[in-house]
């Protein structure tokens, strides 16, 4: 039987192998783009060189053999020098990997070289995945797997085509000056190759291949869930070999400059799963840093406070908070903090217990409700908080106690110089300006902390507009005092800082808090999405009753809330996000929930769910069967008469007839297929013949002899049985010539 499709020659397969190898090398090298590794020069060099080698493989033959021989020692020397100068193992290994990929891409590869290329690429992809834990890794590893499998497939086909028995030994050493150009390179023509690939492709095989690959993905998902999980040892693995800088600038220092221009960054910062969304406040505040000291135009976390309230750093899987277990179903929040945000973890308030997914070096402060990791995590960090209390009031007995024992002035107020939360290191003119402003706010009345906060916020709102671009008034003195005295617009940090100095001037201890405020509710994955643009600064003022009260003086916010805000469906609906970016974020949260955060507990949950679902369906099936049996019995037990018997017999006959007809139809269809070899007109060769018949119809009517010669053969391919087909390629070639003939 004539083949229905042409075959790829060995040269075609070699060219395809070269193409796939180049794509794989490029794809692997580009994963460095996601890593915070200084390898941009190598990346650009790799990209350019690999692309050139892909397009012009013949140029590689001009590289002298000596260069190939010297390449590997030079690469190793570069790696050692890199390691010695940089001192970081992982970045050096990544650069070494890039150099090796470049080396392998610039030489005609044998089978072992192809395998090396795959292993080198896999190393880069896995390292990028482990270090970033990003959703991009999912796409990367899938694309890499597909590409590598296709590459290996073609390698196997090439080996099968080149097979020689017994194997011919290859010489270890050669004295040639330049590399011999393989035959496939001399015949390389990528457009022709694409045409050949198109000619040999069969859409049914392609669909089958795609389904198989989907099966691989499904099987790997099942294996992922089924692989037994136990941890041999808690270690921090790759991230200890690399250091990374923060991108968002959440530090324990806020400095007020003359000009500020905040760039709106819509990148994802935190995704939060809330077990009971109804318990979530309408405007969640996520605290990250508390800055108690104001000095030289900057708010910072003072060293004494840091020493006093932060516990010693220790590796831990979890941290206990200040809340005590409460009756009722526990509410827990699961945080997925993106890499590059901060080493301070966003927290919604007090909590009962915080658990990490893996061991972390953590430093906690119960009184400040803050947690800091040793280093800024280079991967997504997941943690779960149980027993969350989102109240704007944060009790602080230790501070209350220290306030009671602090030095007091003759009027009974704590001496400002003895408390950082009251300190105002200003000159006399600044002090005077502040007192004047306080007098305007209070009107000379003695106010409580909450009332003062409300009035001060109203006063600031009346004086200043909100803007991301702000300019401080020129002049001498403290920048915040200058801004308070002017009318310039400002951003949240200026409002918060101004409120604090005003509160302190009025005698109320106050501190600045930095973190995130608000966020959107992803309608697809049902989670709170907080972006970098939600970064915010607000204040906490001592209410004199043993607690810090949250105050947000930035215009547009509810300045003072002494109790939990209303929450529930209405609050969620107000911040619902159904945009396309929300769809993408939902993919990411799926990745975090089901893949990255999957642990033995989830595994057990999955098994329990499968078990309960199986039991449920079994019960339903049993119940349905019982119902059928009962109804059958009832039907049989009901009265029988001649008409009913006739109806039953007729129905049985009708059913038997329908079954017989269906069987006959299937047998007839099979018989027709067998008779014609392949009765389907969807056969690509038949369709091709049909196309040629349509093209040549007009010329046949004109009586062109060439067409008349090929016409019966085309008809035979179109309608005849497969065994009677002539050689397809020659017939189609003849048809092409007939179409061109004048």
């Amino acid at each position, binding site marked *: *039987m004539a*083949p*229905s*499709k042409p*075959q*790829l020659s060995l040269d075609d397969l070699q060219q395809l192998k070269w193409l796939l190898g180049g794509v794989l090398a490029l794809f692997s090298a580009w994963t460095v783009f996601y890593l915070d590794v200084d390898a941009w020069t190598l990346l650009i060099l790799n990209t350019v060189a690999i692309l050139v080698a892909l397009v012009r493989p013949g140029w590689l033959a001009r590289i002298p053999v000596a260069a190939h021989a010297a390449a590997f020692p030079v690469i190793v020397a570069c790696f050692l020098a890199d390691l010695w100068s940089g001192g970081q193992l992982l970045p050096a290994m990544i650069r070494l990997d890039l150099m090796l990929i470049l080396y392998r891409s610039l030489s005609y590869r044998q089978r*072992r070289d192809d*395998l090396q290329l795959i*292993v080198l690429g*896999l190393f880069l992809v*896995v390292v990028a*995945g*482990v270090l970033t*834990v990003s959703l991009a*890794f999912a796409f990367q*590893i899938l694309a890499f*797997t597909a590409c590598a*499998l296709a590459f*290996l*497939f073609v*390698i*196997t*086909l090439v*080996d*099968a*085509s080149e*097979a020689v*028995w017994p194997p011919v030994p290859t010489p270890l050493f050669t004295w040639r000056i330049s590399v011999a150009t393989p035959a496939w390179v001399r015949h390389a023509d990528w457009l022709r190759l694409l045409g050949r690939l198109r000619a040999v492709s069969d859409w*049914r*095989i392609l669909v*089958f291949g795609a389904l*198989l690959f989907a*099966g*691989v*993905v499904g*099987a*790997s998902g099942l*294996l*992922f869930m089924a*692989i037994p*999980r*136990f*941890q*041999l*040892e*808690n*270690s*921090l*693995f790759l991230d200890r070999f690399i250091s990374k800088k923060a991108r968002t600038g959440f530090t324990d220092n806020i400095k007020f400059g003359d000009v500020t221009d905040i760039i709106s960054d819509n990148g994802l910062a935190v995704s939060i799963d809330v077990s009971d969304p109804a318990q979530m406040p309408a405007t969640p505040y996520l605290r990250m840093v508390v800055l108690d000291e104001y000095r030289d135009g900057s708010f910072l976390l003072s060293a004494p406070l840091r020493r006093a309230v932060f516990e010693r750093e220790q590796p831990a899987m979890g941290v206990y908070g200040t809340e005590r277990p409460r009756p009722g179903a526990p509410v827990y929040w699961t945080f997925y903090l993106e890499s590059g945000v901060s080493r301070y973890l966003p927290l919604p308030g007090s909590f009962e217990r915080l658990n990490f*997914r*893996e061991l972390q070096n953590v430093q906690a402060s119960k009184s400040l409700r803050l947690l800091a990791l040793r280093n800024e995590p280079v991967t997504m960090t997941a943690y779960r908080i149980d027993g969350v209390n989102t109240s704007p009031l944060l009790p602080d007995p230790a501070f209350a106690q220290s306030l009671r024992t602090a030095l007091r002035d003759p009027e009974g107020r704590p001496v400002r110089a003895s408390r950082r939360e009251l300190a105002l290191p200003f000159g006399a003119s600044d002090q005077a300006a502040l007192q004047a402003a306080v007098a305007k706010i209070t009107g000379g009345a003695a106010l409580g902390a909450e009332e003062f906060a409300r009035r001060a916020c109203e006063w600031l709102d009346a004086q200043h507009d909100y803007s991301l671009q702000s300019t401080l008034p020129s002049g001498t003195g403290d920048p915040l005092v200058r801004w308070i005295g002017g009318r310039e617009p400002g951003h949240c940090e200026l409002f918060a800082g101004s409120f604090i100095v005003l509160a302190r001037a009025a005698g109320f201890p106050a501190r600045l808090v930095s973190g995130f405020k608000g966020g959107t509710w992803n309608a697809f994955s049902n989670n709170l999405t907080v972006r970098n643009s939600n970064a915010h600064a607000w204040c906490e003022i001592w209410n004199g009753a043993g607690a810090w009260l949250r105050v947000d003086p930035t215009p547009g916010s509810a300045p003072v809330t002494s109790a939990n805000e209303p929450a529930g469906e209405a609050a969620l609906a107000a911040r619902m996000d159904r945009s396309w970016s929300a769809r993408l974020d939902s993919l990411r949260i799926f990745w975090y929930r089901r*893949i*990255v*955060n*999957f*642990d033995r507990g989830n595994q057990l949950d999955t098994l329990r769910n499968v078990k309960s679902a199986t039991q449920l369906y079994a019960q339903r099936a049993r119940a349905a069967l019982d119902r059928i049996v009962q109804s059958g019995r009832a039907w049989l037990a009901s009265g029988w008469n001649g008409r009913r018997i006739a109806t039953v017999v007729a129905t049985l006959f009708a059913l038997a007839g329908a079954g017989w007809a269906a069987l006959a139809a299937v047998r007839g269809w099979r018989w027709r297929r067998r008779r014609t*070899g*392949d009765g389907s007109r969807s056969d690509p060769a038949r369709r091709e013949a049909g196309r040629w018949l349509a093209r040549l119809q007009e010329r046949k009517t004109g009586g062109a002899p060439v067409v008349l010669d090929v016409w019966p053969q085309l008809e035979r391919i179109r309608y005849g049985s*497969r*065994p009677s087909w002539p050689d397809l390629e020659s017939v189609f070639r003849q048809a092409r010539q007939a179409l061109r003939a004048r």
Partner: protein
Amino acid sequence: MSAASDDWEGPGRSSGGRWGFRWSDLVWALVFPRTGQRIMPTVSGVILVALAFGIGTAAYNTANNILFITLSLLLACLLLSGVLSWLNSKGMAWRLQPPPSLRAGQEAVVALELHNAKRLLPTYGLWFGATARPVDPVPPGTGEKSKDRPVREILAETEKERIRTRLFLRGRLDAGGTARLEWNLKPTRRGTLRLALENVGSLFPFGFLQKRIGGGLRREVVVWPAAIEYRRWGALSSRPQTAGARVARAGSGIDLFALRRYEPGDSHRLIHWKASARSRQLLVRQFAAESQESLALWLQTPADRWSRPEQFELLVSFAATLAEDLFRAGRLTTVAVNDRPPLPVRRVRDFESFLDALAVVQPLPAAAPSPDEATRAGAGGKNLIIFAPDGARGVAAFVDGEKTASA
């Protein structure tokens, strides 16, 4: 075409294009693998296993799900490899088509026909490990001596005689398609040669594992003695015809010799239409041979006369070559081997039967047949070719006691 006939082997042998999968076969194959079934990791397979092991260790050490999912993908790729490999060999049937007979020292083509009975999927990259070995691995005449030889030496000699080859399916075999692989086989000595398809292997699809299944094919073919050079003496080429002797045998002359039944392959011009009409069956004319002389050949192989194996092999090859030359010249009338009944040589098939007998002839331990039996050779003792040792190594042919050829 269908691969349902008996001489086909392979997973698609009885499928006839249908999916022939049965769970019971799979389970049984797991419990008791078929002969020759073997799976060996290749270099890339070892790398994959090592990678999986390393990534698995790192995953368990760190509880990192990225590593777990990489490990899962690697394992799933291994599964995919197995499934694709199974699909590749599924529906494949193969059969050996050797020529009816081979000749020692001459190359012949043994064909391996392949058929892909699958409906959609093509088959790639199969190889077929084939062997040819003499059924009697010990050369004739050396049996007595072999008892004293070490087993290892005998096995080495047997292995040396075994001819191995690998036939590669280089291209793609489309669904429903057939292919033919050719093996140029050159047997070294006469006898019965057992051709076997030992295994069918493949690295398909990704080269991780080398999978082999038993080929399951055995065929035996006869290897005729080798054609050798020999020297003719004048007596054989120019023996005068005995006066008054009549040649009564079929040939290509012009005189009608006899009528016989039509056999497929006979020329239609030879059909005797009148006789066919009378007898209501097709009869063809046979003409008398035109040659003036005919010869009978009688090969006697008493062990006491042919005690040297090399000389015995030379005898058999010499007899075969001489007989062939005489047959081609139309001068061979009757052949006989030892005490078997003489066989008239009228057609090619008769001569081939003689070569078949020569292929397996062995030295006879019994005494040589009596001269009375020799008269059964059909020529009344005249024009009879017999053989005798010619010195320590040579063999001579005698006609009526006169040396006519030697080798």
